[in-house]
């Protein structure tokens, strides 16, 4: 492996390096192609789509499909595009992310620094919550939302996402706080600080990375959710993923692929933005959630 750093390479080595790069770039192409195709399709007029190929660049680029997808496409019974649904997703995701993250932070703090008899059992039980297939709670959840009068409401979805996000957020914070030396907490206890003062003054100030990881994880999970959205919302309260599916899977006579693609990109923009803005934390969350799970 060190041969690469020495500048002089034998011919077989050079061929090896070249094919290495070739394979890596081919895969990069494979991963980028769908995004590229989505983007070019979304700015082509329909007749270009009908006559051209998948990868043909648009001859007369237009933003018409984007405007239509955003404001006037037919989704369900209304002709108002996905803007309203996009807003729904925001209204669901923001409170659910914040609440589940904050509760997770405090839970993680207790489960790592204020252990009590049974706290490890509690954590193990909660860990299961990360893994259950949500199908097994859909029916009772639907009933419960009905009883609470939250069926088909944004608040109902906020509740659902908060509750089922808790397992992950607690896991993240607990594993992060376990890495902070107990001596720090003991020092603060001896300095006279209590439960909350230690949390505010000692733990929170060093928690920025884990807040980033958790918030990004939760945002991606909740924004991209489809199952809860399709089960617990109706018509106007649907999140953007459900709306996108309704748009794409409509049985309308003329398929407007450009509008579909524009809508898909709009639905993907927030999480893509989060990914490119804070990819480091995104990956850390993925591997933390997975490996430590």
């Amino acid at each position, binding site marked *: 492996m060190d041969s690469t750093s020495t500048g002089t390479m034998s011919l077989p080595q050079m061929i090896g390096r070249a094919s290495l790069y070739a394979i890596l770039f081919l895969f990069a192409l494979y991963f980028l192609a769908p995004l590229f195709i989505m983007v070019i399709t979304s700015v082509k007029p329909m007749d270009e789509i009908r006559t051209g190929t998948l990868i043909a660049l648009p001859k007369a680029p237009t933003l018409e499909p984007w405007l239509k997808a955003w404001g006037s496409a037919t989704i369900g019974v209304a002709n108002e595009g996905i803007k309203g649904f996009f807003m729904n997703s925001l209204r669901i995701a923001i409170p659910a992310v914040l609440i589940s993250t904050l509760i997770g932070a405090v839970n993680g703090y207790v489960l790592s620094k204020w252990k009590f008899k049974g706290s490890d059992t509690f954590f193990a039980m909660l860990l299961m919550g990360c893994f259950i297939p949500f199908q097994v709670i859909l029916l009772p959840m639907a009933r419960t939302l009905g009883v609470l009068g939250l069926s088909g409401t944004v608040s109902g979805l906020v509740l659902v996402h908060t*509750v089922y996000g808790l397992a992950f957020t607690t896991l993240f914070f607990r594993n992060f706080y376990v890495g902070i030396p107990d001596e720090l907490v003991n020092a603060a206890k001896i300095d006279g600080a209590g439960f909350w003062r230690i949390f505010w003054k000692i733990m929170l100030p060093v928690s920025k990375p884990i807040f980033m990881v958790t918030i990004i994880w939760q945002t991606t999970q909740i924004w991209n959710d489809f199952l809860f959205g399709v089960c617990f919302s109706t018509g106007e309260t649907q999140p953007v993923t459900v709306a996108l599916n309704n748009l794409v899977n409509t049985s309308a006579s003329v398929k407007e692929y450009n509008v579909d693609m524009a809508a898909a990109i709009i639905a993907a923009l927030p999480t893509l933005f989060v990914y490119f803005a804070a990819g480091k934390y995104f990956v850390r969350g993925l591997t933390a959630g997975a490996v430590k799970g």
Partner: protein
Amino acid sequence: MAELMRTAERSYNPFTILERVMPKLVVAPSFVAMLIFIYGFILWTVYISMSKSTFLPNYDFVGLVQYVRLWKIDRWYVACKNLLLYGGLFIAFCTAIGLLLAIFLDQKIRLEGALRSIYLYPLSLSFVVTGTAWRWMLNPGLGLERLVREMGWQSFSFDWLVNSDMAIYTIVIAAVWQSTGFVMAMFLAGLRGIDNSIIKAAQVDGASLPRIYLKIVIPSLRPVFFGSFIILTHIAIKSFDLVVVLTRGGPGYSTDLPATFMYAYAFTRGRLALGAASATMMFMMVMAIIVPYLYSELRSKANG
């Protein structure tokens, strides 16, 4: 002495007592929520799966009748068969490509950061978006088929999306595209965690690079294989959105998975008990994989 301790405790002011129970107080709501929303709900679902429920919950206990019925339904059988096929291919491709990319990326590649971001970005997308994109690309009229024909191969035909024998593979294609980056990230982290001196020692011993990878590096990634296998299985069993968007379970029910089956029976067809039975089956599948995994994880942590 016990007397002394008691007096000392009695002298506590209310603040100290509050301070003492604070940790428990703080996690209590989550604990209650967990008991109700996870364990209570699972029990409720299991109970419903043993009841006569149809459109509305009905609490008459009928035992395992619904499970017997479930396994007689061809659609459920197809869904499980699909899960095995789809899950197997999905895991195999993700692991193979992910490992390959991770090893290649670990060769002091220029642009590693950029390439890694490209491999990983699909993970940030919703399966609904992924499904939408692939649905368009695999579209028999205007998609890949047309592209290849325009390039000169006139007889090329690619109709998997609407072919009930092949449609399940389109789901594999899209799912692999979305999740490979994740496996790559896990393997890359694993590779970076390997002690470099081991590899140097092997080089000094005169082992060739492929041999070092086959005999030393890959075997030491065993925990990563294990971990990603668990996660991918879990993703496969929960797969729902991708199928809904890409094929709606069709043509017919040829691409149904347990998750879409459950949704169809419980929410659109109003067969609560059967839906609950299928959900319970899914739960048991996941548990069969997760419980041993968690057990070994926690045990190795306790020993270490």
